């Protein structure tokens, strides 16, 4: 029933937006329109919030030439298609589809509107008018795993994820491998809750992980709910997508911040200049897309030094957590000693490393 109501809502939003655009079309004609579809509400203080910051960066940098439009709460199903069509018909020249689950919908609508350029976040299917862009969140996860592996007393770490998609699998693996570098016996208990945003379920899953012995829980879902539970229990965790320390000043050790602004401004500028071309971009710490939030003073100095070492290694290209030997959950050697996983392998990864306890 939620699906129906959400779709109805989207249609309503689309229709209302279309109507309002008719009135302003003449006035705004000289500005290039850039559209965004967002998975969650812009107030989620996580994934969507960070993408919206990137949109605001376009407004700030190119506000005199570019006008941005966004639609929130777009489900990752067929209902994204009419929303995308609406944006294209409103005259958007560039549309950012900011979640993995919009992949086929983006390709479909891109086929219908060859003159409109699309940018799909975290996907791998491209076309002449569809670029893909991604962020190496796993580099940030490697820093979190280093801190967690060193600080955990029990050696049992919790990982609260959304779905088994490459981004999450990479995050889990980077976190587990980094923790095991500090504590070879460290294990990671993984719960995938089948949602990016469900505060009550995130909270209950965090309680469950704590009860099963985890003393540090990291989240790969979008609300600050898990951190609030950790704060109440006097344990530690990390923010996802944005600095969430205000929600849990003691529990929040640090966070992975997603900085999309520079990329969004660059691509919008390319549309203005007429130089836009389809490409695949996968930036990370080096380019400033992945940033580690300020450390909590509760992190001991030696752990800070280790975490900074990982950050520095990623920035100068001397470090990669996906360097062999790497074993999968069943103990099979997946990456040989000294080999480094290629970007291609990372983008399509679907297996978890040794020490990850998961249901799938």
């Amino acid at each position, binding site marked *: *029933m939620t699906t129906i*109501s959400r779709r109805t809502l989207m249609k309503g939003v689309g229709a209302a937006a279309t109507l309002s655009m008719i009135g302003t079309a003449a006035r705004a004609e000289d500005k290039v329109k850039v559209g965004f579809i967002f998975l969650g509400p812009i107030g989620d203080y996580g994934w969507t919030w960070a993408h919206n910051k990137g949109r605001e960066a376009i407004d700030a940098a190119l506000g005199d030439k570019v006008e941005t439009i966004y639609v929130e*709460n777009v489900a990752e199903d067929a209902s994204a298609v009419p929303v995308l069509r609406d944006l294209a018909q409103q005259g958007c020249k560039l549309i950012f589809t900011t979640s993995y689950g919009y992949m086929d919908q983006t390709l479909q609508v891109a086929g219908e509107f060859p003159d409109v350029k699309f940018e799909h976040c975290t996907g791998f299917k491209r076309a002449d008018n569809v670029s893909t862009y991604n962020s190496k969140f796993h580099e940030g996860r490697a820093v979190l795993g280093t801190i967690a592996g060193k600080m955990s007393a029990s050696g049992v770490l919790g990982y609260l994820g959304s779905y088994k998609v490459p981004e999450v699998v990479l995050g889990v693996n980077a976190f587990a491998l980094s923790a095991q570098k500090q504590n070879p016996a460290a294990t990671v208990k993984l719960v*995938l809750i089948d949602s990016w945003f469900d505060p009550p379920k995130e909270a209950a*899953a965090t309680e469950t992980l704590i009860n099963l012995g985890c003393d540090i829980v990291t989240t790969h879902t979008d609300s600050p709910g898990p951190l609030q539970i950790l704060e109440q229990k006097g344990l530690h965790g990390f923010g996802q997508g944005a600095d969430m320390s205000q929600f849990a000043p003691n529990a929040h050790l640090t966070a992975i911040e997603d900085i999309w602004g520079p990329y969004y401004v660059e691509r919008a500028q390319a549309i203005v200049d007429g130089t836009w071309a389809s490409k695949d971009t996968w930036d990370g710490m080096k380019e400033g897309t992945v940033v580690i939030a300020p450390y909590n003073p509760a992190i001991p100095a030696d752990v800070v030094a280790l975490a900074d070492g990982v950050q520095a290694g990623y920035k100068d290209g001397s470090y990669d957590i996906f360097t062999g030997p790497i074993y999968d959950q069943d103990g099979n050697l997946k990456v040989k000693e000294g080999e480094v996983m290629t970007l291609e392998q990372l983008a399509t990864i679907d297996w978890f490393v040794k020490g990850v*306890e998961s249901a799938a």
Partner: protein
Amino acid sequence: MSLDFIIAAIITVVGLTTPILLAGLGELVVEKAGVLNLGVEGMMLIGAISGFGVTVMTFNPWLGVLGAAAGGALSALLFGVLVLSLNSNQVATGLALSIFGTGLSSLIGLSFVGRIAAPFGSIFPASLAKHPILQVFFGYSPLVYFALIMVPLVAWFLKSTRAGLILRAVGENDHSAHSIGYNVIGVRYAAIAFGGAMAGIGGAYFSMVITPMWAEKMTAGRGWIALALVVFAGWRTGRLLAGAYFFGILMALELYAKASGFSFLPSQFWAAMPYLMTVVALTFISSRGNVGASAPACLGKPFLP
């Protein structure tokens, strides 16, 4: 399995159960009066933001609970005006209330995004509330005890009071109730307001107790589960309590199974479980032909005297 482990699991189950129990109890009374209000999700969200907003502004969670009840009841009364006084279709209006509540709560909530409040935790002394074993009885928010007290109260009201009898009469046969002089519309307004207040408090459980913050759509579909729960319970209060805890245990089991590395059921199956169980319960009820456990006869029908 140690005692600590079981206690922690029970506390998680109580947290998952209480909001759907509160909202379900309210909806049960509404449906007993012959009105189907599908707007539970929207009323819960309005309650969640009202409760959180009042708590943040007054630093008083008790006022927050009152605010949540008032917010839920007001939005329900809007539904009441449409379906009772203007005789609009209850299903369509209820769905509209869910959508409206989602949007309105987001709008009101804009200025509360990123703010936090102290959790509305236990009111018992720490020696009881934080005690490793006794916390399983004393460690909860007052809303948990409120929900548990309301179950027998509602049961007693419906079964043993004159007002409860009138409410059921209105739900079973509105024209008869009308012909012997009862105010059908008035009774239904009161039931709808009560249902809204309970849904509002249920929503506030999310924004004031579990994760004391405001986030859009933070109830994430629990209103629909509360609706299913009423049907699952066969419109009986005792079964509603049992059903709420059954659903709560199912939700917790999913998380425990996943965290322990079991994957004997696909996760989509777990998510569908409350609804599947409701279908099973409905089949069971109708095959037995038990009148006492069937829907109120006037459920969802407009009253046109």
